[in-house]
């Protein structure tokens, strides 16, 4: 595989991280809460695919969507609603705790060894062999992420529901005063997060057909770093930040010699630290960033 091949792979992984980052950005936009538990919804979805391994793939994927959306809504009610009005830092810590708790729960329920899921395994076949070694899953990753992100953009900027979501993101109290039913907007945000978690669970499981307890936290922490890098306050920039960190992470993983692979995460974080020292508002924030958020 050549450098071009690595680049394509990195774009594909970046696309997955963008999907995770957009979920975190969406919840932050609407509620000013940091949703670290999103990772465990993805893990929950991935485990559900293992549980449903005997079902036809299409049915398992469909059910996985329902399961992730339900999980996301349950977390909304049990964790996020009671935290309304709390500081972003509080929500970060609480959802971090929830994530660890759920990770322990997966360990108890599913055990320490990975659970194999051989769903849609053919997507790992190569489309173009040789130097680029392009796999179907890479195309599916990039295509799915692009379609979903464009769909979200259309929802936010071309629909009445999106207008209401942007209103809540810009000014929670005034949105309520003009009559935006806040609970509906929040519900929609968490439904979208659940759906995005299902997409990531499916795509991630196809690429890495072994579901482990650390799946959620390992993805969400990197995505969160991306969100902060891009700018937590702005959905498009947060998403782009998620993409960049995923991209860098993947590229480092491909080009570093094998014995130095342990440094991938450290190097990614080093990159982020340097960026944040130079530009504390985020890599992508304009100088003297304004009030706009979504």
């Amino acid at each position, binding site marked *: 595989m050549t450098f071009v091949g690595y680049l394509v792979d990195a774009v594909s992984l970046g696309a997955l991280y963008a999907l995770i980052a957009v979920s975190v950005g969406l919840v932050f936009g609407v509620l000013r809460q940091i949703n670290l538990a999103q990772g465990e919804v993805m893990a929950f979805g991935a485990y559900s695919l293992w549980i449903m391994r005997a079902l036809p793939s299409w049915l398992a994927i469909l059910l996985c969507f329902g399961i992730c959306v339900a999980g996301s809504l349950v977390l909304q009610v049990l964790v996020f609603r009671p935290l309304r009005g709390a500081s972003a830092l509080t929500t970060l810590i609480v959802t971090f705790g929830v994530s660890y708790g759920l990770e322990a729960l997966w360990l108890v329920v599913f055990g320490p060894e990975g659970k194999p899921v051989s769903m849609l395994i053919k997507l790992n076949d190569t489309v173009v062999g040789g130097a680029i070694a392009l796999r179907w899953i890479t195309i599916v990753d990039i295509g799915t992420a692009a379609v979903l992100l464009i769909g979200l953009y259309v929802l936010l900027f071309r629909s*009445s529901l999106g*207008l*209401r979501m*942007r*209103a809540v993101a*810009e*000014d929670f*109290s*005034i*949105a*309520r*005063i*003009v*009559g*935006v*039913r*806040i609970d509906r907007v929040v519900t929609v945000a968490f439904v979208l997060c659940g759906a995005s978690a299902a997409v990531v669970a499916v795509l991630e499981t196809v690429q890495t057909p072994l579901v482990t307890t650390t799946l959620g936290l390992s993805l969400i922490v990197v995505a969160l770093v991306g969100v902060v890098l891009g700018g937590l306050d702005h959905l498009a920039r947060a998403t782009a930040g998620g993409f960049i960190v995923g991209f860098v992470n993947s590229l480092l993983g491909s080009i570093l010699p094998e014995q130095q692979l342990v440094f991938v995460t450290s190097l990614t974080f080093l990159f982020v630290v340097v960026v944040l020292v130079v530009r504390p508002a985020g890599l992508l924030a304009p100088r003297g960033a*304004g*009030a*706009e*958020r*979504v």
Partner: protein
Amino acid sequence: MRASLSGGGEEGARSSTALLDVADLRVTYGRSVAVGGVSLVVHEGEVVGLIGPNGAGKSSTLLAIMGAVRRSGGDVRLSGKRLSPSRPEEVARLGVALVPEGRHLFASMTVRENLELGRLARGDRSPRFDDREVGQLFPVTEEFRNQRAGLLSGGQQQQVAIARALLADPDLLLLDEPSLGLAPAAVTAVFSALEHIRQLGVAILLVEQRAEMTLEFCSRSYVMVGGRIRFEADRSTPIESVIVAYFGATSTAASEHER
């Protein structure tokens, strides 16, 4: 002349035909009392002023009517129906629109989007006016339709803010210091727009610091000092007696503040 000290007189003024009926409203922030038992009524189509010095609790009264700040006591009814103390979105949908102090448009959105959000609270009621009438009343909303609201001048933003509230087709419009920080010409424009709104039959509760202008504009005005209504005046009330109410109680307000 119907100027009476508040208290018993107000109880008498409350009647079953009241559009807005606020009884013994209280708002406290921590230990400080912002609104200490306010009772007032606004009848259908009536324009009522709420004047008083800075820190009198006027804004808190409006926000508490809307359900946007927690009430620590009292009751707010619209046409006899109790308004939610904590869900401003439902209060808005029942026909109360608030133009908050400082306008608070969605700055990153266009004027058109701001107005579209205004229409949200309208619900299924058939509006008493055409949307085009609002455009004629506030030409700014047509001229800068696709402009970001945050880029407009203060006076223009105030017009958009009032238009946004009006598009909800409210029965009651709550206005918090619409003239604050505006140039004299913009103040005149705002008040002439309010005159048109009055003619549409929308009841208005107008909070202002410009006492004389408000007394002149409203059919009745409450004078609020130190979290309480001290005085009720109408157009024929001599301004001197209002000033006496202001100053007589300002010292009280100051001492309450220091506590």
